[in-house]
């Protein structure tokens, strides 16, 4: 990826981050590493939260977005509550996820596939329906990975805890109108 592309990614990210409540604080990062030390997913991430800010400053955000990092974030807010500079880092992660999806950089990510399947299910029903969500997810990733879920699914089934046919909300049509309306002036 060219440097120009990396710069563009940084610029777009910062524009979105500045729109967040307290987003501008990202400029006050002192690289203390508290966020990374608090992150439950750090062991699996190629770049931890502190390194993400460092990459952003070095104009190398592309390496983060091309890595396995951002979808490993589980949105636990540990980084946010502990950051001495008051940076809402969990929300920065949401922005990174959106940017990655928008730029088509998250093709192989399980987390992104799950999130997209979730959005489709909710758009179809107005609610989330777990059986439909998981079917979509495993068909698009690796159906064999669904096998370890089978014992749990059986247990849930025998207790009547699986919803096989998702119900739709009554106001689905109006909800779709609302979503279409926000889409019209959606910028991100």
């Amino acid at each position, binding site marked *: 990826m060219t440097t120009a592309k990396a710069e563009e990614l940084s610029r777009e990210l910062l524009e979105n981050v500045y729109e967040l*409540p307290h987003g501008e604080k990202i400029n006050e990062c002192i690289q203390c590493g508290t966020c990374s030390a608090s992150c439950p997913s750090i062991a699996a991430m190629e770049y931890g939260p502190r390194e993400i800010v460092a990459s952003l400053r070095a104009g190398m955000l592309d390496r983060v977005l091309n890595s396995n990092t951002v979808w490993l974030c589980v949105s636990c807010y540990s980084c946010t509550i502990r950051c001495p500079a008051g940076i809402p880092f969990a929300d920065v992660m949401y922005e990174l996820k959106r940017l990655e999806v928008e730029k088509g950089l998250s093709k192989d990510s399980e*987390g992104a596939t*799950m999130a997209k399947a979730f959005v489709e299910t909710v758009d179809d029903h107005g609610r989330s329906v777990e059986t439909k969500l998981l079917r979509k997810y495993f068909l698009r990733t690796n159906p064999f990975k669904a096998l370890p879920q089978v014992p749990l699914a059986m247990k849930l089934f025998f207790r009547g805890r699986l919803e096989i046919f998702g119900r739709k909300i009554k106001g689905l049509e109006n909800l779709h109108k609302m979503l279409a309306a926000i889409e019209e002036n959606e910028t991100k």
Partner: protein
Amino acid sequence: MNDEATRAYSYFPGCSVTATNRAYDISTRSVAGALGVELAELDDWNCCGATAYLPIREKRSFVLSARNLAIAEKQGRELATICNACYVVLRKTNKHLAEDPKLHEEVCQALAAGGMDYGGTVRVRHFLDIVVNDLGEEAIRSHVTRDLSGLKVACYSGCQLSRPFDDLDDPEYPELMGRLIGWLGAEAVPFPMSAKCCGGLAMTTRPEIGQTLTGKILKVAKQAGADCVTTCCPLCQINLEGYQGAVGAAIGADCSIPVLYFTQLMGSAFGLGQKELALKDSLTPVKALLAEKVGT
């Protein structure tokens, strides 16, 4: 504080309690009934968007939340939720709308396309907060009819309950649920994992991460001498109860321990029956535990 009998809230059950985790919904309604708290289910509510919708379409996720808040606003009451993710997402929407008038206007225009409007006045509450802070110690104690003494409980609040807003409970070492458990007569064991994340959706998308995180929580609960773990979030509950075998194998420790909702434990202290608390839905031996220790 109002008279107990007049307490009424709008109620947002959330998608995950309609089927898989209906025991939480059932036990919440039963406990509310016993306490004389009215929970009026929000008419035709929709999914709040949870943590998985936000990263794809942020503004659409605000519209999803705002539609629910708009329905609640018409009913003119506070909105009770029982899922940590719903609680955070609905509050986040409120906060973003309050701090960003332009966004509020855009969202209202979108709502108007479906014949709704939201002024921004609904206060979102977690049922745990309502029970502890609105009802309080005396009201809770006065409903206890069964003796829970001797029962040791690891109270698991989950990571999102008081984050990022940091106003309901301590975000690192929560104590709300522990206080409640004490009022019921049981003992809340010191449990430093109470606000550590269970891994959420990573249990499905990246099992190795989810299993390690959930494993630590269960292992420490056992080490702390707890007889059971209580939860206040359907997603935490399914991660903690649903995969104990795989989780134990992954971290090389015994992770088998009964996991139940705090509402199920409350109901059992209030003398409610197995059916009202949907104990048969449990994937861990909750029925046996309560039969032995409490006589439910």
